């Protein structure tokens, strides 16, 4: 599934992460697992992309982070969405809906 789908998913990384964090607080690996599941194993973000996106979202004030309380080994970094983050997610979602409609009109030849 390389090519267009892969590019488009990567291009929408921020919105995808916000979607999951709007549902509940989570951490890198858990989100990536859900992405794999929802795409039937066809797509997973590579982790460097994930961390860059987390930093970006944190800098923009859309998410904040905290440590998990695992008491053995490395602690998990959990992320939580902010008010601004929820608003950004809604805005991005609307833009995506709009883009989807426009693309459909342009690509579909209405013959099916």
């Amino acid at each position, binding site marked *: 599934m390389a090519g267009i789908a892969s590019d488009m998913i990567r291009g929408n990384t921020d919105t995808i992460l916000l979607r999951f964090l709007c549902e509940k607080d989570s951490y*890198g*690996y858990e989100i*990536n697992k859900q992405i794999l599941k929802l795409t039937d194993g066809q797509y997973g973000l590579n*982790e*460097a992309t994930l961390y860059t996106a987390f*930093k970006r979202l944190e800098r923009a004030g859309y998410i904040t982070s905290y440590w998990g309380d*695992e008491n053995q080994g*490395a602690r998990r*970094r959990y992320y939580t969405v902010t008010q601004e983050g929820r608003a950004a997610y809604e805005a991005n979602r609307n833009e995506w809906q709009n883009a989807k409609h426009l693309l459909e009109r342009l690509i579909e030849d209405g013959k099916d």
Partner: protein
Amino acid sequence: MEKINEYLNQCFGPYVMSTELENLKEEILANATDHYNDLLSQGKSEAEAEETVLASLGDIRGLLQEIGAPKKETTSRSAQFTLDKDLIRDFADSVTGIFTRALDSLGHDGTRTEVYANIEKIEIHGVSVDIAVLPSSDELVHVCAEGNQDEISFEVVDDTLIIREVLSGNLIFRSGMDLALEVPSSLRTLDVQVVSGDLNMSGISLEKLGFQSTSGDLTIRHGSLGTLYMRSLSGDVYARLNDLDSFDAKLASGDVDVKCIYGGEFSAETQSGDIDAEIGETVTSFFAKATSGDVSVKLPRRLRIAPNLSSLSGSIDTGISSDPDGLPVTVRTISGDIKVRRK
């Protein structure tokens, strides 16, 4: 998990481990461990699990580059040391303390307001003077100067007001001066020469504006100018104007971002900055040169143009047809890209 630990140590090795990097490393390790354990519980062997996790990590080195954290320095004597931040902070505090106390004993901070009539020209000379200029509601020049009052001087010679930042003893920890000016429409010339101050103007019309700075920026939100003359090392110019009869800017690393509705002669040169220009139908000549920066020009729809564009290693993108009788539009860069479009 050995190979994974080793890989992370290798990626983070060259960097000075700040709290941010320590946190990131721990986060990556936690996610990798979860992933690894999941794979084991799915029946994969340790070796397979390690390979899969390593592949999924992606370009961690690239990530660290992007973060831009400082790298460790290795001298030829291989003396590696990590900076003790607390020690340095204490040292900096005590040094600043010494200078602050010295500063307090020299001069006094305050605000001074002056009003002048019949001024046609204002000259400002200083080291680090930030200047804001707005229109005044009467025919007078109002000046409000904030800073060390022992270092500010005002002088009127005929119809010219000269404001100077006079340097006293302390040259290291200068707080500089803030000037707020309200000027009438009868003011004709403003000439500013500063080392590091910014000049901000809004709603002003002048016959001539001169701005020379080492690192100060020029920002003009709206207004009209006869001549704009700018020379700067690293300062940028951002201007949105109705009229700009003559624009002459030479910068070293500053950017030029100028848009005007009318326009006349336009000449902009910068070495490593970019040039973004949009100019109106009254333009009489156009020259833009950016050594390594990009140039983007928007020209009036109906103007006949003879483009003369050259870039040594950059790309040239123009949809404009050349008219040999048209206005010569010259754009040169060495390694930047050129884009010339109609509005």
